[in-house]
């Protein structure tokens, strides 16, 4: 049995803490390298799997192209608008339903039936109503995202401690004050979760609508590259959508953390 001296042990651990992220980077880089090699030596058909370097270069070209950014803006605008509508409508409805036992039971079967309907099924309806205008995209986005927010807000509203609410009532707090000091703190984390989930669903439906209905945006561009057989461009655009997806995730988590941190401090203030 060997004995470890203290400095050596410390060294090993310093590297252990960095190990995770480093390996992660190695994984990504390794994947790109493998892809590049496999494509160049013909292990995978370069017509369908262009080398990673070419895809990255094409992505770079896109980033300098104003038309690309117009498409990104179109997609993001529809995403944002649809998400905002879904959040407001979902939160209001969710609060009403969660607050009333009667409403909850009354609407449960309808919600359970409507929720699993895939938003894409509404594509033909959207086309009939709005053609290729952005409203058809919004219809799809809102229909899909609203459930995420609504359900979370219902859970949150139901989670409000009835004892705390009764106590507040007995202290003479009116409805608005009770909402502010009792309901809101409890429901907020749920709402944030709902927003985070809705954000990624909204992106999926935005791209979907653009692909099928051909409303302007990245989805439409992706379909066009396929028609032109431009595999490199398609990969580059797909990469771009992935990056947008990651960005949205990160921003949402950041917002969630900040809001909940503020929320925690507010809760402590209120309790104190």
């Amino acid at each position, binding site marked *: *049995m060997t004995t*470890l001296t203290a400095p050596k042990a*410390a060294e090993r*651990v*310093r590297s252990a803490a960095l190990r995770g992220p480093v390996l992660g980077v190695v994984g990504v880089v390794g994947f790109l390298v493998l892809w590049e090699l496999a494509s160049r030596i013909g292990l995978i058909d370069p017509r369908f799997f262009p080398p990673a370097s070419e895809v990255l270069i094409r992505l770079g070209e896109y980033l300098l192209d104003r038309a690309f950014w117009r498409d990104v803006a179109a997609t993001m605008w529809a995403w944002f608008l649809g998400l905002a509508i879904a959040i407001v409508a979902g939160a209001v409805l969710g609060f009403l339903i969660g607050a009333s036992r009667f409403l909850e039971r009354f609407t449960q079967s309808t919600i359970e039936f409507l929720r699993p309907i895939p938003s894409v099924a509404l594509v033909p309806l959207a086309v009939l109503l709005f053609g290729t205008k952005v409203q058809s995209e919004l219809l799809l986005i809102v229909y899909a995202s609203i459930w995420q927010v609504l359900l979370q807000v219902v859970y949150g509203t139901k989670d409000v401690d009835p004892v705390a609410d009764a106590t507040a009532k007995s202290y003479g707090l009116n409805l608005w004050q009770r909402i502010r000091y009792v309901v809101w703190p409890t429901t907020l984390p749920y709402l944030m979760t709902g927003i985070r989930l809705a954000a990624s669903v909204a992106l999926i439906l935005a791209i979907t609508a653009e692909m099928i209905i051909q409303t302007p945006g990245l989805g439409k561009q992706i379909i066009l590259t396929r028609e032109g057989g431009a595999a490199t461009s398609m990969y580059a655009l797909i990469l771009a959508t992935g990056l947008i997806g990651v960005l949205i995730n990160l921003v949402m988590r950041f917002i969630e953390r900040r809001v909940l941190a503020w929320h925690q401090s507010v809760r402590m203030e209120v309790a104190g």
Partner: protein
Amino acid sequence: MPEPTTPVLVVEGLRKVYPAPTAGGQSVEAIRDLTFTVPQGQLVCIVGPSGAGKTTLLKCIAGLLPPTAGKLELQGKPISGPPRTMAVVFQEYGRSLFPWMTVQANVELPLKSAGVGKAERHQRSHEALVAVNLADAGEKYPWQLSGGMQQRVAIARAVAYRPEILIMDEPFAAVDAQTRAELEDLVRKLWKELGVTVLFVTHDIDESVYLGERVIVLSNRPTVVQDDVVIDLPAERDQLTTRSDPRFAELRLKIYGEIQRAKDTTGDTMTVRTIPAA
């Protein structure tokens, strides 16, 4: 006293250092030097102040944690992984039993892995459950039982395994006092019936004196053996008479004093003593 044969467990110069958890932090020397032996069939209790590395010691003996230095031998062979003839009862019974399996399935699982046939498995698990007074609980799920009953299932699982040495890591710490008394008697009963060697770690001094034939007191971190006390109470013990025996109070006081000392002493302030085999 019978002629001492080769001790079943030999711990010599055991040392365990935990590397620093974060870069730039301090490494922790949990155990500096532990040396003791355990003869076959003994019920030895291990006590010490909080943080004294009791669990670390058990994990090393159980082959779950590699020591930094020192010699660990079970029945003459070095311990390099969980030994076949050893069974462990953990403190957190709620997390040690598998909640997706019934009580009986839990008790039988180690046997299944050891290649024991179905009929024999059923028989051994039934016997074990009877021995811990849970004959009817076979089809229940662990989370349907109370804390004390769950720990009895864990004990039954160990018993059915037919180990030669049984390790128990503060098994009754999370259980109420009344249940604890019952479980202590259960351990002594099983120990006598099965003739196993038992290593029982506890922070409860009374429990260690009531149960053990011998109590090893550990010092504070970095841990060394502080004291090794023979419990010369009669072999037949029960909760009422034994605990009111004046000798019980004396031993209790002695060990309590050692623990108080142990809180202040560490491996740095003590000279290492070699303890003769009991």
